[in-house]
């Protein structure tokens, strides 16, 4: 019995190949976008985990000093009291224009060293590693970049190291970083002897922190990955609308067949199970297609994501995608689960269908109650807002987002219906009245597609507003901040001094750019020293601080910190920031510092010299009449025989910064566009679904004298009006979304709050785009209507319908 039933079920799809393709495409799109995001996240997380496991980072407790510096004497005191700790000195070095982490460990006591070997595969001789000049260990990629530098010790490669990390002995690190006598952290070894004195007795200044309390890459980037996941989920949901529409249609069309099969004696249970099995098979096929799509998409996006993560967080991510079985299994499970979820309603109705019910489609379409939906929507919105007002942070932000989006989507049918009723009441002409009434009647079948469109449009407006606001703010800030006409980098501090002396009489001002990396409990902190010059007072906007903040700074009595540090460490003007043992400065102000993941602080140059006298002095900003900049750059290059990269005009620096910025949101924008595409497709499938049920409604109108062309045009109009109504409602929703992204999510993800700008022109573009999508979605049904043979329309009256 099963064989013929299967044949009968399959015959439907043989006759409705477009429908089958739509169903599979829906499942594939939903699974594909979701899986792509998951693959990217998994790859990035695997990179972090690998990095952690490779050097035992993130497994053992550590001791740190609030200032980030631990005197060597403290280490020795701990050891001589019995505490087993391994000394680590972290820093950064330049590798082919990119700053990478240098991790100097006491190679004799560090607990988790990978196997290291020389090019012949032998273990390197201990004396070569532990005595000057020492050896550096890095991945082959990084080693190749480092090899451009002549001033480094010999480099040995190891694939067992995290990318973007140079491992070396602590003695070598001291020499390279120009820092001796202090350490950045102490790793507590797993085996400790008996009878140790309490830690606070030996080293009262040190704080012990567990692996989970450390702000590591994984935590730093969590919000970024959560952002991606949210997008993936949105795409998945929109994809499911397609599945829902298609399955609903297919089941409606098969009612006749179902009735016949049951009349022939096929039990309902068997039939339901077979149809469920059919869906699972489709889900698996569509899901597999989706996985392929997702893998390709992830492969295409990963390099950009990796660049973003590296640029923003300094997070080590390899730009290479691996196929993970768990990922494929999860993707297929999502596909099957999603398909069944989206088809649940159709299956449920099938199971409850009376044996002799008429095979009409009205029964299927008999709409969900707008009011119930709207009430649920209001409740979900309220729940989201309540969650945000009760809780704080990123997750609360996302709950707010989810609540508002879902709630508004549920409210949509009610709002559209109300709008249509209002329009309908104002209509005077019969045809117009019919058009409004007909739209009202079609609404239940279209409402899911409209919800999908609403979500996609809102996401588009929201994300677009965020990215554009960010761009505007960032570029404005760049213009403000990058004021020096030329930026010079000397080969070393000696040449730096010569250049500075040479420039003094020739330029308006020579502003040294000197910095030193200090460890801070929130991660690395870059301290800059500046000289008193109007450039800073005029061009560095403070988001918080006293009016005399700059005076306090230049008197050496205060420090300015960037917004990231302020938010991360919750330090605001008036608080004190410890910089070195026995030295803490009062925060005079907070400045905005977009596009930079790390904490930053500024002190007067005199003070900087006390804190980091050994910091190099080889970078300068030069203020000069812009028309003189280019000749001066040439003269400078000639005089000091500098390479092309050593003297950079302002415009080049800005271009570089812009390029980094554009990369940051390339993934977001790509997902944004894809989501909109999927929503357009959902609208198309819904209209196609409705088309099959249109004839009985249109035939009487046709019979009353409206031509098929007129009806087709009205069909197009209907689609555009509904889309426009949705887009109109999506606008405020999108703006709310943008506000949440800018003021909640961004602060958590990047550490800065951005002002919101509105871009009405972008909305117009989006409206036009939506209208075009609606036209395209309705084009096929309309074209069919135009070409429908009058006999078919006549048959409606003869038919049992």
């Amino acid at each position, binding site marked *: 019995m099963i064989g013929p039933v299967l044949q009968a079920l399959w015959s439907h799809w043989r006759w409705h190949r477009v429908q089958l393709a739509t169903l599979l495409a829906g499942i594939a799109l939903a699974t594909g976008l979701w899986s792509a995001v998951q693959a990217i996240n998994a790859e990035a997380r695997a990179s972090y985990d690998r990095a952690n496991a490779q050097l035992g980072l993130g497994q053992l407790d550590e001791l740190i000093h609030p200032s980030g510096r631990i005197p060597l004497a403290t280490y*020795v005191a701990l050891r*001589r009291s019995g505490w087993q700790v391994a000394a680590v000195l972290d820093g950064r070095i330049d590798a082919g224009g990119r700053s990478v982490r240098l991790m100097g460990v006491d190679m004799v006591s560090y607990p988790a060293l990978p196997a290291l070997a020389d090019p012949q595969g032998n273990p390197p001789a201990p004396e070569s590693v532990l005595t000057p000049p020492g050896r550096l260990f890095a991945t082959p990629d990084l080693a190749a970049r480092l090899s451009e530098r002549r001033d480094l010790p010999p480099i040995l490669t190891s694939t067992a190291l995290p990318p973007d990390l140079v491992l070396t002995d602590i003695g070598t690190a001291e020499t390279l970083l120009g820092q001796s006598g202090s350490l950045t952290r102490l790793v507590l070894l797993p085996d400790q002897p008996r009878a140790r004195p309490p830690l606070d007795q030996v080293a009262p200044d040190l704080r012990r922190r567990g692996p989970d309390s450390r702000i590591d890459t994984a935590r730093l980037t969590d919000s970024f990955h959560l952002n991606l996941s949210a997008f993936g989920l949105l795409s998945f949901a929109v994809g499911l609308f397609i599945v829902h529409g298609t399955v609903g249609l297919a089941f409606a069309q098969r009612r006749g067949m179902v009735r016949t099969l049951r009349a022939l004696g096929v039990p309902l249970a068997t039939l339901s199970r077979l149809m469920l099995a059919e869906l699972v098979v489709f889900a698996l096929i569509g899901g597999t297609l989706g996985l392929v799509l997702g893998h390709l998409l992830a492969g295409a996006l990963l390099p950009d994501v990796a660049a973003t993560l590296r640029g923003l967080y300094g997070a080590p991510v390899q730009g290479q995608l691996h196929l993970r079985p768990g990922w494929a299994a999860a993707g297929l499970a999502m596909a099957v689960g999603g398909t069944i979820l989206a088809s649940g309603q159709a299956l449920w109705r099938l199971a409850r269908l009376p044996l002799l019910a008429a095979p009409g489609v009205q029964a299927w379409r008999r709409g969900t109650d707008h009011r119930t939906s709207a009430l649920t929507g209001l409740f979900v919105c309220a729940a989201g807002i309540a969650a945000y007002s009760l809780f704080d942070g990123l997750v609360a932000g996302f709950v707010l987002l989810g609540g508002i989006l879902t709630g508004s989507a549920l409210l949509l049918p009610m709002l559209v219906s109300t709008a249509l009723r209002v329009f309908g009441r104002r209509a005077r002409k019969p045809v117009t009245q019919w058009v409004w009434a007909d739209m009202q009647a079609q609404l239940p079948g279209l409402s899911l597609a409209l919800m999908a469109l609403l979500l996609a449009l809102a996401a588009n407006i929201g994300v677009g507003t965020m990215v554009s606001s960010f761009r505007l703010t960032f570029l404005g800030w760049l213009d403000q901040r990058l004021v020096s006409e030329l930026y010079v980098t000397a080969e070393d501090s000696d040449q730096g001094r010569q250049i500075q002396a040479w420039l003094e009489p020739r330029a308006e001002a020579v502003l040294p750019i000197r910095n030193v990396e200090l460890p801070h409990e929130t991660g690395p902190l870059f301290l800059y020293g500046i000289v008193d010059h109007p450039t800073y007072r005029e061009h560095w906007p403070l988001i918080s601080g006293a009016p005399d903040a700059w005076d306090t700074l230049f008197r050496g009595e205060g420090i300015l910190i960037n917004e990231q540090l302020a938010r991360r460490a919750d330090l605001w003007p008036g608080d004190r920031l410890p910089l070195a043992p026995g030295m803490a400065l009062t925060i005079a102000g907070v400045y905005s510092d977009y596009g930079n993941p790390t904490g930053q602080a500024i002190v007067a140059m005199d003070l900087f010299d006390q804190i980091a006298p050994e910091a190099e002095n080889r970078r300068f900003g030069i203020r000069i009449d812009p028309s003189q900049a280019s000749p001066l750059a040439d003269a400078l290059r000639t005089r000091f025989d500098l390479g092309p990269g050593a003297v950079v005009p302002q415009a080049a620096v800005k271009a570089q910064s812009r390029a980094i910025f554009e990369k940051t949101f390339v993934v977001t924008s790509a997902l944004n566009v894809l989501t909109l595409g999927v929503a357009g497709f959902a609208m198309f499938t819904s209209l196609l679904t409705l088309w099959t049920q249109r004839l009985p409604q249109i035939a009487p109108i046709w019979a009353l004298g409206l031509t098929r062309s007129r009806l087709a045009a009205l069909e197009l109009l209907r689609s555009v009006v509904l889309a426009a109504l949705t887009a109109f409602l999506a606008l405020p929703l999108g703006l709310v979304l943008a506000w949440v992204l800018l003021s909640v999510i961004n602060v958590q993800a990047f550490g800065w709050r951005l002002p919101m700008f509105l871009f009405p022109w972008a909305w117009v573009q989006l409206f036009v785009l939506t209208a075009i999508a609606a036209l395209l979605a309705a084009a096929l049904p309309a074209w069919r209507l135009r070409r429908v043979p009058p006999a078919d329309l006549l048959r409606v009256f003869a038919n049992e319908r």
Partner: protein
Amino acid sequence: MNVKALVFLLLTPFAASAQGFAGLGSSAEGFDIPQPGHRFDFPADHGPHPSFRIEWWYLTANLTGADGQEYGIQWTLFRSALRPFEQSGWQSPQLWMGHAGLTTPDTHFFAERLARGGIGQAGVTAVPFQAWIDEWHMRGDIIDALSLRANGADFGYDLSLTADGPLVFHGDNGYSVKSAEGQASYYYSQPRYAVSGVLHLPDRDVQVTGEGWLDREWSSQPLAADQSGWDWFSLTFDTGDKLMAFRLRGGRGDFTAATWINAEGTSQSLPDGQIRFTPVQTSSVAGRDIPTEWAISLPAKGVEIRVSALNPGAWMGTRFAYWEGPVTVSGSHAGRGYLEMTGYGAPP
């Protein structure tokens, strides 16, 4: 002797490429080489000799507890130089390693420490005498009166040592030859310390008394290329006489040496071939067959003895693993002492 160890190619990632045990067979370029006719200079020579590749301060003691039980302890500080000089800071080429052991008849505890020279975490000074690594120390104003401490995760000891006799110089006035080819070290001992103090066991502290033996040795290449390990004995007989004896096992035959120290402290060196070692019984320890009972014959002194381990499981499972533990002596002479054995094949 205790050509013990070294080590220090002990950095696990650099694995032992090792010729001989623990890299001791490698050549000594740039380092000083022991010369015959050396005149020792005390107290300076109790301190380190950075221009030699390896050096150690090696103390063992046989102890009796207030509970009547026999115990043994080991406290060792090794120095290994990557380059023949010392400088301050992490750039120092000197490395230090500490080993501590505590043996009861049924349990053996051990611990290991590693440290870099140049920063004060470990080192030795001659005046006042101090040898330390982390919180372990062996120190006193002079080397004749020392306090000794070590701790592991679940054991430790605090002992005081008082010398009761002169230093003893092995080989040719402290020039101790280690192979037929002439590899040698500087080697002297203080074999007669009276020891008292407390042992910390996981479940109790035990007051102990007994006698200790300190070995001092430094060299740059103590093993010949074919030598793979050694058996080293320091024995104290009930008569008051003492015997230091070792056998270096080589591909081209064994090399033996011994020093007879009589109760008054005068010593006599016994050259290669005078003493015979015969393993009588082996025990399976850490997957290896280790001789834990020996027959030793020294006809020149009328010695025909059996030496057996107090605890055959006295395995030092450190980076370079070896057997080291207290022994009891029976036969022509009765007494007790310490035995160290290295280079017995690792499990396949």
